[in-house]
Protein backbone atom coordinates (compact mmCIF):
# COMPACT_ATOMS: atom_id res chain seq x y z
CA UNK A 1 0.00 0.00 0.00
CA UNK A 2 1.47 3.34 -0.96
CA UNK A 3 1.84 6.18 1.51
CA UNK A 4 -1.06 8.29 0.26
CA UNK A 5 -3.46 5.39 0.25
CA UNK A 6 -2.28 4.45 3.72
CA UNK A 7 -2.84 7.99 5.00
CA UNK A 8 -6.33 8.09 3.55
CA UNK A 9 -6.97 4.71 5.07
CA UNK A 10 -5.76 5.90 8.48
CA UNK A 11 -7.90 9.05 8.31
CA UNK A 12 -10.90 6.94 7.36
CA UNK A 13 -10.20 4.45 10.14
CA UNK A 14 -9.73 7.31 12.59
CA UNK A 15 -13.10 8.80 11.71
CA UNK A 16 -14.79 5.39 11.64
CA UNK A 17 -13.43 4.65 15.10
CA UNK A 18 -14.44 8.08 16.43
CA UNK A 19 -17.96 7.80 15.03
CA UNK A 20 -18.36 4.31 16.46
CA UNK A 21 -17.35 5.55 19.91
CA UNK A 22 -19.55 8.64 19.68
CA UNK A 23 -22.44 6.28 18.94
CA UNK A 24 -21.78 4.60 22.28
CA UNK A 25 -21.20 7.74 24.34
CA UNK A 26 -23.73 8.41 27.08
CA UNK A 27 -25.80 11.58 27.08
CA UNK A 28 -23.82 12.75 30.12
CA UNK A 29 -20.50 12.19 28.35
CA UNK A 30 -21.62 14.06 25.25
CA UNK A 31 -23.08 16.94 27.23
CA UNK A 32 -19.96 17.26 29.38
CA UNK A 33 -17.89 17.36 26.18
CA UNK A 34 -20.14 20.06 24.78
CA UNK A 35 -19.87 22.12 27.99
CA UNK A 36 -16.08 22.05 27.74
CA UNK A 37 -16.08 23.75 24.36
CA UNK A 38 -15.84 27.56 24.49
CA UNK A 39 -16.67 29.57 22.50
CA UNK A 40 -19.50 27.46 21.11
CA UNK A 41 -19.19 26.86 17.38
CA UNK A 42 -21.95 27.77 14.97
CA UNK A 43 -23.94 24.60 14.16
CA UNK A 44 -26.54 24.35 11.39
CA UNK A 45 -28.81 21.35 11.03
CA UNK A 46 -28.60 19.67 7.63
CA UNK A 47 -30.74 16.60 8.29
CA UNK A 48 -32.66 15.45 11.33
CA UNK A 49 -32.23 14.60 14.07
CA UNK A 50 -34.65 11.84 13.17
CA UNK A 51 -35.45 8.30 14.28
CA UNK A 52 -35.98 5.44 11.86
CA UNK A 53 -35.16 1.81 11.31
CA UNK A 54 -32.19 -0.16 10.12
CA UNK A 55 -32.76 -3.72 8.99
CA UNK A 56 -30.19 -5.77 10.90
CA UNK A 57 -28.80 -8.60 8.84
CA UNK A 58 -27.33 -11.88 9.93
CA UNK A 59 -25.59 -14.59 7.94
CA UNK A 60 -27.06 -18.02 7.21
CA UNK A 61 -25.19 -20.53 9.33
CA UNK A 62 -23.23 -17.67 10.93
CA UNK A 63 -20.87 -17.09 8.02
CA UNK A 64 -22.92 -17.67 4.87
CA UNK A 65 -25.01 -15.31 2.80
CA UNK A 66 -27.02 -12.52 4.39
CA UNK A 67 -30.59 -12.72 5.64
CA UNK A 68 -32.79 -10.10 7.28
CA UNK A 69 -32.89 -10.76 11.02
CA UNK A 70 -35.08 -7.87 12.15
CA UNK A 71 -35.05 -4.12 12.50
CA UNK A 72 -33.52 -1.82 15.11
CA UNK A 73 -34.39 1.76 15.93
CA UNK A 74 -31.68 4.19 14.89
CA UNK A 75 -31.44 7.93 15.40
CA UNK A 76 -29.33 10.06 13.11
CA UNK A 77 -28.43 13.65 12.43
CA UNK A 78 -26.25 15.60 10.03
CA UNK A 79 -24.95 19.05 10.89
CA UNK A 80 -22.74 21.67 9.25
CA UNK A 81 -20.45 23.92 11.24
CA UNK A 82 -20.21 27.62 10.44
CA UNK A 83 -16.73 26.81 9.15
CA UNK A 84 -18.21 24.31 6.67
CA UNK A 85 -17.38 20.87 8.11
CA UNK A 86 -20.15 18.30 7.83
CA UNK A 87 -20.70 15.91 10.72
CA UNK A 88 -22.82 12.75 10.86
CA UNK A 89 -24.20 11.15 14.01
CA UNK A 90 -26.01 7.81 14.03
CA UNK A 91 -26.71 5.44 16.87
CA UNK A 92 -29.05 2.71 18.04
CA UNK A 93 -32.14 3.84 19.88
CA UNK A 94 -34.52 6.78 20.08
CA UNK A 95 -32.27 9.46 21.48
CA UNK A 96 -32.28 12.17 18.83
CA UNK A 97 -30.48 14.67 21.06
CA UNK A 98 -27.59 12.22 21.35
CA UNK A 99 -27.52 11.73 17.59
CA UNK A 100 -27.36 15.51 17.16
CA UNK A 101 -24.47 15.86 19.61
CA UNK A 102 -22.63 12.94 18.01
CA UNK A 103 -22.92 14.70 14.66
CA UNK A 104 -21.59 17.93 16.16
CA UNK A 105 -18.57 16.12 17.59
CA UNK A 106 -17.95 14.29 14.32
CA UNK A 107 -17.80 17.70 12.62
CA UNK A 108 -15.64 19.25 15.35
CA UNK A 109 -13.24 16.31 15.11
CA UNK A 110 -12.34 17.54 11.64
CA UNK A 111 -11.20 20.94 12.95
CA UNK A 112 -7.65 21.03 14.29
CA UNK A 113 -8.52 23.42 17.17
CA UNK A 114 -11.23 21.08 18.49
CA UNK A 115 -9.61 17.79 17.69
CA UNK A 116 -8.00 17.27 21.08
CA UNK A 117 -11.26 17.95 22.97
CA UNK A 118 -13.07 15.38 20.84
CA UNK A 119 -10.19 12.92 21.21
CA UNK A 120 -10.42 13.31 24.99
CA UNK A 121 -14.13 12.62 24.88
CA UNK A 122 -13.88 9.53 22.72
CA UNK A 123 -10.84 8.36 24.68
CA UNK A 124 -12.93 8.49 27.85
CA UNK A 125 -15.77 6.62 26.16
CA UNK A 126 -13.38 3.98 24.91
CA UNK A 127 -11.86 3.48 28.37
CA UNK A 128 -15.30 3.15 29.91
CA UNK A 129 -16.40 0.58 27.31
CA UNK A 130 -13.17 -1.39 27.74
CA UNK A 131 -13.63 -1.44 31.50
CA UNK A 132 -17.24 -2.61 31.16
CA UNK A 133 -16.34 -5.25 28.58
CA UNK A 134 -13.50 -6.48 30.74
CA UNK A 135 -15.73 -6.72 33.78
CA UNK A 136 -18.33 -8.71 31.83
CA UNK A 137 -15.69 -10.96 30.27
CA UNK A 138 -14.22 -11.69 33.70
CA UNK A 139 -17.62 -12.42 35.17
CA UNK A 140 -18.32 -14.80 32.28
CA UNK A 141 -14.89 -16.39 32.63
CA UNK A 142 -15.76 -17.28 36.24
CA UNK A 143 -18.57 -19.45 34.82
CA UNK A 144 -16.16 -21.46 32.63
CA UNK A 145 -16.38 -25.17 33.35
CA UNK A 146 -13.14 -26.80 34.47
CA UNK A 147 -13.56 -30.47 33.72
CA UNK A 148 -11.58 -32.95 35.75
CA UNK A 149 -11.27 -36.67 35.38
CA UNK A 150 -11.85 -38.96 38.31
CA UNK A 151 -8.90 -41.33 38.52
CA UNK A 152 -10.12 -44.88 38.79
CA UNK A 153 -8.53 -47.20 41.31
CA UNK A 154 -8.29 -50.29 39.11
CA UNK A 155 -4.99 -50.30 37.23
Amino acid at each position, binding site marked *: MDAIKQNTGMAMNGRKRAMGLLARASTAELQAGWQSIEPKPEVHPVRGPETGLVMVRGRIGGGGDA*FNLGEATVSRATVRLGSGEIGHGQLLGNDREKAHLAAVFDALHQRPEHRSVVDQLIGAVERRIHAEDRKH*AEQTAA*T*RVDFFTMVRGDN
Partner: protein
Amino acid sequence: MYVAVKGGEAAIANAHQLLADRRRGDRSLPAISIDQIVAQLGLAVDRVMAEASLYDRELAALAVRQARGDMIEAIFILRAYRTTLPRFGMSVPVDTAAMKIERRISATYKDLPGGQLLGPTFDYTHRLLDPSLLSDEPVAEPTRRAADESAMMRVSDILAGEGLIEGDGQMPEDHVPGDLTREPLEFPLNRDLRLQALARGDEGFLLALAYSTQRGYARTHPFVGEVRIGEVDVELDIPELGFAVSLGPIQVTECQMVNQFQGSTKNPPQFTRGYGLVFGQSERKAMAMSLVDRALRAGEFGEDIVAPAQDEEFVISHSDNVQATGFVEHLKLPHYVDFQAELDLVRRMRAEYDAKSGIDKDGAREAAE
Protein backbone atom coordinates in the same frame (compact mmCIF):
# COMPACT_ATOMS: atom_id res chain seq x y z
CA MET B 1 -77.09 -4.89 1.61
CA TYR B 2 -74.82 -3.36 4.26
CA VAL B 3 -76.43 -1.54 7.13
CA ALA B 4 -74.13 0.75 9.07
CA VAL B 5 -74.75 0.59 12.78
CA LYS B 6 -73.10 3.02 15.11
CA GLY B 7 -72.87 3.02 18.84
CA GLY B 8 -70.74 2.16 21.79
CA GLU B 9 -68.49 5.25 21.76
CA ALA B 10 -69.12 5.97 25.42
CA ALA B 11 -68.76 2.30 26.36
CA ILE B 12 -65.45 2.07 24.51
CA ALA B 13 -64.09 5.24 26.11
CA ASN B 14 -65.08 4.02 29.55
CA ALA B 15 -63.65 0.56 28.88
CA HIS B 16 -60.28 2.11 28.00
CA GLN B 17 -60.42 4.23 31.13
CA LEU B 18 -61.11 1.09 33.13
CA LEU B 19 -58.19 -0.66 31.39
CA ALA B 20 -55.89 2.20 32.40
CA ASP B 21 -57.11 1.90 35.98
CA ARG B 22 -56.63 -1.87 36.17
CA ARG B 23 -53.23 -1.57 34.52
CA ARG B 24 -52.12 0.87 37.19
CA GLY B 25 -53.63 -1.32 39.89
CA ASP B 26 -53.33 -0.53 43.59
CA ARG B 27 -52.31 3.14 43.80
CA SER B 28 -50.62 2.59 47.17
CA LEU B 29 -47.93 0.60 45.30
CA PRO B 30 -45.26 2.45 43.32
CA ALA B 31 -45.74 2.32 39.54
CA ILE B 32 -43.25 0.06 37.77
CA SER B 33 -40.77 2.08 35.69
CA ILE B 34 -39.56 1.30 32.18
CA ASP B 35 -35.98 1.11 33.52
CA GLN B 36 -37.10 -1.50 36.05
CA ILE B 37 -38.75 -3.59 33.36
CA VAL B 38 -35.63 -3.41 31.16
CA ALA B 39 -33.35 -4.28 34.07
CA GLN B 40 -35.42 -6.85 35.97
CA LEU B 41 -37.74 -8.43 33.41
CA GLY B 42 -35.09 -8.47 30.69
CA LEU B 43 -36.04 -11.78 29.10
CA ALA B 44 -39.66 -10.68 28.69
CA VAL B 45 -38.35 -7.54 26.99
CA ASP B 46 -36.10 -9.69 24.78
CA ARG B 47 -38.98 -11.87 23.69
CA VAL B 48 -41.04 -8.86 22.73
CA MET B 49 -38.13 -7.44 20.71
CA ALA B 50 -37.49 -10.74 18.95
CA GLU B 51 -41.08 -11.42 17.95
CA ALA B 52 -41.92 -7.81 17.17
CA SER B 53 -38.77 -7.93 15.02
CA LEU B 54 -37.66 -4.59 16.43
CA TYR B 55 -34.59 -4.19 18.60
CA ASP B 56 -35.27 -1.45 21.13
CA ARG B 57 -35.28 -2.39 24.80
CA GLU B 58 -36.97 0.78 26.04
CA LEU B 59 -39.82 0.60 23.57
CA ALA B 60 -40.27 -3.13 24.18
CA ALA B 61 -40.44 -2.49 27.93
CA LEU B 62 -42.97 0.26 27.35
CA ALA B 63 -45.02 -2.19 25.29
CA VAL B 64 -44.84 -4.80 28.09
CA ARG B 65 -46.08 -2.25 30.59
CA GLN B 66 -48.81 -0.95 28.30
CA ALA B 67 -49.95 -4.53 27.59
CA ARG B 68 -50.02 -5.37 31.32
CA GLY B 69 -47.50 -8.14 30.65
CA ASP B 70 -49.50 -9.75 27.83
CA MET B 71 -46.60 -10.69 25.58
CA ILE B 72 -48.46 -11.05 22.31
CA GLU B 73 -50.29 -7.76 22.88
CA ALA B 74 -46.91 -6.12 23.60
CA ILE B 75 -45.45 -7.63 20.43
CA PHE B 76 -48.46 -6.34 18.49
CA ILE B 77 -48.02 -2.80 19.87
CA LEU B 78 -44.31 -2.75 19.01
CA ARG B 79 -44.96 -4.13 15.51
CA ALA B 80 -47.54 -1.41 14.96
CA TYR B 81 -45.06 1.23 16.09
CA ARG B 82 -42.38 0.07 13.67
CA THR B 83 -44.68 0.74 10.73
CA THR B 84 -44.62 4.45 11.64
CA LEU B 85 -40.86 4.76 11.15
CA PRO B 86 -38.95 5.27 7.91
CA ARG B 87 -36.24 2.78 7.05
CA PHE B 88 -32.73 4.20 6.79
CA GLY B 89 -31.07 1.13 5.30
CA MET B 90 -29.69 -2.34 5.85
CA SER B 91 -26.87 -3.13 8.24
CA VAL B 92 -23.69 -4.88 7.32
CA PRO B 93 -24.38 -8.52 8.33
CA VAL B 94 -23.50 -8.94 12.01
CA ASP B 95 -20.41 -11.02 12.71
CA THR B 96 -21.28 -13.59 15.34
CA ALA B 97 -17.73 -14.99 15.27
CA ALA B 98 -16.59 -11.66 16.78
CA MET B 99 -19.31 -11.76 19.46
CA LYS B 100 -18.49 -10.54 22.96
CA ILE B 101 -19.47 -13.77 24.62
CA GLU B 102 -21.72 -13.86 27.66
CA ARG B 103 -22.54 -17.55 27.40
CA ARG B 104 -21.25 -20.23 25.10
CA ILE B 105 -21.78 -23.93 25.40
CA SER B 106 -21.36 -26.94 23.17
CA ALA B 107 -22.92 -30.33 23.62
CA THR B 108 -20.61 -31.88 21.03
CA TYR B 109 -17.13 -30.92 22.24
CA LYS B 110 -16.15 -30.90 25.87
CA ASP B 111 -12.77 -29.23 25.49
CA LEU B 112 -13.36 -26.74 22.74
CA PRO B 113 -11.16 -23.64 22.36
CA GLY B 114 -12.46 -20.95 24.70
CA GLY B 115 -14.19 -23.52 26.88
CA GLN B 116 -17.73 -23.99 28.07
CA LEU B 117 -18.95 -20.69 29.49
CA LEU B 118 -22.21 -21.08 31.37
CA GLY B 119 -23.00 -17.38 31.76
CA PRO B 120 -26.22 -16.26 33.47
CA THR B 121 -28.16 -19.48 32.93
CA PHE B 122 -31.20 -21.10 34.53
CA ASP B 123 -29.62 -24.49 33.76
CA TYR B 124 -28.63 -26.48 36.85
CA THR B 125 -30.92 -24.40 39.08
CA HIS B 126 -33.37 -26.55 40.99
CA ARG B 127 -36.43 -24.66 39.86
CA LEU B 128 -37.53 -24.22 43.43
CA LEU B 129 -39.28 -20.97 44.27
CA ASP B 130 -36.78 -18.67 45.92
CA PRO B 131 -38.29 -16.98 48.99
CA SER B 132 -35.37 -14.54 49.15
CA LEU B 133 -36.90 -12.83 46.11
CA LEU B 134 -40.02 -12.04 48.13
CA SER B 135 -38.05 -9.22 49.64
CA ASP B 136 -35.27 -7.00 48.40
CA GLU B 137 -32.27 -8.84 49.80
CA PRO B 138 -28.86 -7.63 48.66
CA VAL B 139 -27.37 -9.61 45.76
CA ALA B 140 -23.63 -10.40 45.77
CA GLU B 141 -21.37 -9.10 43.01
CA PRO B 142 -20.51 -11.89 40.56
CA THR B 143 -17.18 -13.67 40.90
CA ARG B 144 -14.50 -12.72 38.39
CA ARG B 145 -11.71 -14.63 36.79
CA ALA B 146 -9.01 -13.67 34.28
CA ALA B 147 -10.59 -13.73 30.85
CA ASP B 148 -9.42 -14.40 27.35
CA GLU B 149 -11.09 -11.63 25.36
CA SER B 150 -10.04 -12.85 21.93
CA ALA B 151 -12.69 -13.97 19.47
CA MET B 152 -14.07 -17.43 20.13
CA MET B 153 -13.94 -20.06 17.41
CA ARG B 154 -17.26 -21.40 16.17
CA VAL B 155 -17.88 -25.08 16.68
CA SER B 156 -18.99 -25.39 13.06
CA ASP B 157 -15.49 -24.23 12.03
CA ILE B 158 -13.94 -27.10 13.98
CA LEU B 159 -15.90 -29.70 12.02
CA ALA B 160 -15.50 -27.70 8.81
CA GLY B 161 -11.73 -28.11 9.18
CA GLU B 162 -12.17 -31.86 8.69
CA GLY B 163 -14.73 -31.41 5.93
CA LEU B 164 -17.27 -33.34 7.99
CA ILE B 165 -19.97 -30.68 8.02
CA GLU B 166 -21.78 -28.77 5.34
CA GLY B 167 -20.73 -25.17 4.83
CA ASP B 168 -22.58 -22.04 5.89
CA GLY B 169 -25.61 -21.46 3.71
CA GLN B 170 -24.90 -19.92 0.33
CA MET B 171 -27.53 -18.38 -1.90
CA PRO B 172 -27.14 -18.08 -5.65
CA GLU B 173 -24.85 -15.34 -6.95
CA ASP B 174 -26.42 -11.82 -6.90
CA HIS B 175 -29.22 -13.00 -4.63
CA VAL B 176 -30.75 -10.10 -2.71
CA PRO B 177 -31.93 -11.21 0.75
CA GLY B 178 -35.72 -11.45 0.76
CA ASP B 179 -37.64 -9.17 3.11
CA LEU B 180 -41.08 -10.28 4.23
CA THR B 181 -41.83 -6.81 5.58
CA ARG B 182 -41.69 -5.48 2.03
CA GLU B 183 -43.02 -8.22 -0.23
CA PRO B 184 -45.83 -10.71 0.36
CA LEU B 185 -44.66 -14.26 0.94
CA GLU B 186 -44.76 -16.56 -2.06
CA PHE B 187 -44.12 -20.24 -1.51
CA PRO B 188 -41.75 -21.96 -1.87
CA LEU B 189 -39.40 -19.64 0.00
CA ASN B 190 -35.65 -19.35 -0.04
CA ARG B 191 -33.86 -20.19 3.19
CA ASP B 192 -32.99 -16.54 3.88
CA LEU B 193 -36.66 -15.56 3.92
CA ARG B 194 -37.54 -18.58 6.05
CA LEU B 195 -34.92 -17.55 8.60
CA GLN B 196 -36.37 -14.03 8.74
CA ALA B 197 -39.83 -15.47 9.36
CA LEU B 198 -38.53 -17.92 12.00
CA ALA B 199 -36.52 -15.20 13.78
CA ARG B 200 -39.77 -13.30 14.41
CA GLY B 201 -41.89 -16.43 14.82
CA ASP B 202 -43.79 -17.27 17.98
CA GLU B 203 -41.56 -18.99 20.49
CA GLY B 204 -44.26 -21.35 21.68
CA PHE B 205 -45.21 -22.42 18.18
CA LEU B 206 -41.60 -23.02 17.12
CA LEU B 207 -40.87 -24.81 20.38
CA ALA B 208 -43.79 -27.19 19.80
CA LEU B 209 -42.70 -27.87 16.22
CA ALA B 210 -39.09 -28.40 17.31
CA TYR B 211 -40.32 -30.80 19.98
CA SER B 212 -42.37 -32.67 17.40
CA THR B 213 -39.22 -33.32 15.35
CA GLN B 214 -37.57 -34.82 18.41
CA ARG B 215 -40.56 -37.05 19.04
CA GLY B 216 -40.31 -38.57 15.60
CA TYR B 217 -42.25 -36.24 13.33
CA ALA B 218 -39.34 -35.49 10.97
CA ARG B 219 -36.44 -36.81 12.94
CA THR B 220 -33.16 -35.01 12.31
CA HIS B 221 -30.92 -36.46 15.05
CA PRO B 222 -29.80 -33.12 16.42
CA PHE B 223 -26.88 -32.11 18.61
CA VAL B 224 -26.31 -28.61 19.90
CA GLY B 225 -23.01 -27.84 18.22
CA GLU B 226 -23.05 -24.53 19.95
CA VAL B 227 -25.23 -21.95 21.63
CA ARG B 228 -23.70 -18.53 22.11
CA ILE B 229 -25.15 -15.37 23.60
CA GLY B 230 -23.48 -11.99 23.55
CA GLU B 231 -23.08 -8.64 21.87
CA VAL B 232 -22.38 -8.01 18.22
CA ASP B 233 -21.74 -4.68 16.58
CA VAL B 234 -24.29 -3.27 14.14
CA GLU B 235 -22.63 -1.38 11.30
CA LEU B 236 -24.34 0.76 8.69
CA ASP B 237 -22.85 1.98 5.43
CA ILE B 238 -22.90 5.77 5.25
CA PRO B 239 -23.05 6.60 1.54
CA GLU B 240 -21.80 10.17 2.12
CA LEU B 241 -18.63 8.79 3.69
CA GLY B 242 -18.07 5.66 1.66
CA PHE B 243 -17.55 3.41 4.67
CA ALA B 244 -19.56 1.65 7.35
CA VAL B 245 -19.77 3.00 10.88
CA SER B 246 -20.82 1.29 14.09
CA LEU B 247 -24.25 2.18 15.47
CA GLY B 248 -23.60 0.32 18.71
CA PRO B 249 -23.98 -3.23 19.98
CA ILE B 250 -27.03 -5.49 20.13
CA GLN B 251 -27.37 -8.71 22.09
CA VAL B 252 -28.21 -11.83 20.11
CA THR B 253 -28.46 -15.58 20.72
CA GLU B 254 -27.12 -17.96 18.09
CA CYS B 255 -27.59 -21.71 17.84
CA GLN B 256 -25.72 -24.07 15.56
CA MET B 257 -27.61 -27.34 15.50
CA VAL B 258 -25.64 -30.23 14.04
CA ASN B 259 -27.74 -32.93 12.42
CA GLN B 260 -27.24 -36.33 10.96
CA PHE B 261 -25.36 -37.10 7.84
CA GLN B 262 -26.37 -36.52 4.33
CA GLY B 263 -24.57 -37.99 1.44
CA SER B 264 -25.33 -38.11 -2.21
CA THR B 265 -23.61 -39.05 -5.43
CA LYS B 266 -22.19 -35.51 -5.45
CA ASN B 267 -21.39 -35.01 -1.76
CA PRO B 268 -19.68 -37.37 0.69
CA PRO B 269 -21.53 -38.14 3.93
CA GLN B 270 -21.34 -35.16 6.24
CA PHE B 271 -23.23 -33.49 9.07
CA THR B 272 -25.94 -31.06 8.10
CA ARG B 273 -26.94 -27.99 10.08
CA GLY B 274 -29.85 -25.96 11.28
CA TYR B 275 -29.33 -22.33 12.23
CA GLY B 276 -30.96 -20.09 14.79
CA LEU B 277 -30.35 -16.40 15.42
CA VAL B 278 -32.58 -14.31 17.68
CA PHE B 279 -32.54 -10.82 19.17
CA GLY B 280 -31.67 -10.71 22.86
CA GLN B 281 -31.09 -13.62 25.21
CA SER B 282 -33.41 -16.38 24.04
CA GLU B 283 -31.78 -19.74 23.96
CA ARG B 284 -35.00 -21.77 23.78
CA LYS B 285 -36.15 -19.80 20.77
CA ALA B 286 -32.77 -19.99 19.00
CA MET B 287 -32.63 -23.76 19.53
CA ALA B 288 -36.21 -24.27 18.36
CA MET B 289 -35.53 -22.08 15.32
CA SER B 290 -32.47 -24.11 14.37
CA LEU B 291 -34.39 -27.38 14.63
CA VAL B 292 -37.23 -26.05 12.51
CA ASP B 293 -34.80 -24.51 10.00
CA ARG B 294 -33.23 -27.94 9.54
CA ALA B 295 -36.59 -29.70 9.29
CA LEU B 296 -37.72 -27.23 6.63
CA ARG B 297 -34.67 -28.11 4.53
CA ALA B 298 -36.08 -31.59 3.93
CA GLY B 299 -36.66 -30.93 0.24
CA GLU B 300 -33.11 -29.69 -0.22
CA PHE B 301 -31.76 -33.00 1.13
CA GLY B 302 -34.26 -35.18 -0.67
CA GLU B 303 -35.94 -36.28 2.56
CA ASP B 304 -39.56 -37.39 2.57
CA ILE B 305 -41.89 -34.61 3.66
CA VAL B 306 -44.13 -36.40 6.14
CA ALA B 307 -44.45 -34.14 9.17
CA PRO B 308 -45.83 -30.68 9.99
CA ALA B 309 -42.39 -29.26 10.87
CA GLN B 310 -41.21 -30.01 7.32
CA ASP B 311 -44.15 -28.28 5.67
CA GLU B 312 -42.88 -24.83 4.80
CA GLU B 313 -46.21 -23.28 3.96
CA PHE B 314 -47.81 -24.63 7.11
CA VAL B 315 -44.97 -23.58 9.40
CA ILE B 316 -44.24 -20.13 8.02
CA SER B 317 -47.89 -19.19 7.46
CA HIS B 318 -48.70 -19.91 11.09
CA SER B 319 -45.54 -18.85 12.91
CA ASP B 320 -46.38 -15.16 13.21
CA ASN B 321 -48.29 -14.58 16.42
CA VAL B 322 -49.47 -11.10 15.47
CA GLN B 323 -51.15 -12.44 12.34
CA ALA B 324 -52.46 -15.41 14.27
CA THR B 325 -53.92 -13.41 17.10
CA GLY B 326 -55.41 -10.92 14.68
CA PHE B 327 -57.35 -13.59 12.87
CA VAL B 328 -58.35 -15.61 15.90
CA GLU B 329 -59.29 -12.57 17.98
CA HIS B 330 -61.24 -10.87 15.23
CA LEU B 331 -63.91 -13.49 15.85
CA LYS B 332 -65.00 -11.59 18.97
CA LEU B 333 -65.74 -8.42 17.00
CA PRO B 334 -69.35 -7.80 15.98
CA HIS B 335 -70.54 -10.36 13.42
CA TYR B 336 -74.20 -9.54 14.02
CA VAL B 337 -75.20 -9.35 10.37
CA ASP B 338 -73.21 -12.44 9.37
CA PHE B 339 -74.73 -14.31 12.23
CA GLN B 340 -78.27 -13.14 11.44
CA ALA B 341 -77.84 -14.49 7.92
CA GLU B 342 -76.65 -17.82 9.25
CA LEU B 343 -79.46 -17.88 11.76
CA ASP B 344 -82.02 -17.32 9.01
CA LEU B 345 -80.44 -20.08 7.00
CA VAL B 346 -80.41 -22.60 9.82
CA ARG B 347 -84.04 -21.74 10.68
CA ARG B 348 -85.06 -22.41 7.09
CA MET B 349 -83.10 -25.65 6.98
CA ARG B 350 -84.58 -26.70 10.27
CA ALA B 351 -88.12 -25.97 9.04
CA GLU B 352 -87.50 -28.08 5.92
CA TYR B 353 -86.03 -30.87 8.01
CA ASP B 354 -88.91 -30.86 10.44
CA ALA B 355 -91.44 -30.77 7.62
CA LYS B 356 -89.78 -33.70 5.89
CA SER B 357 -89.39 -35.92 8.96
CA GLY B 358 -92.87 -35.02 10.18
CA ILE B 359 -91.84 -34.42 13.76
CA ASP B 360 -94.34 -32.48 15.76
CA LYS B 361 -92.72 -29.11 16.57
CA ASP B 362 -94.16 -28.89 20.05
CA GLY B 363 -92.94 -32.37 20.85
CA ALA B 364 -89.42 -31.49 19.78
CA ARG B 365 -89.42 -28.40 21.95
CA GLU B 366 -90.54 -30.39 24.96
CA ALA B 367 -87.75 -32.89 24.43
CA ALA B 368 -85.20 -30.08 24.22
CA GLU B 369 -86.37 -28.67 27.55
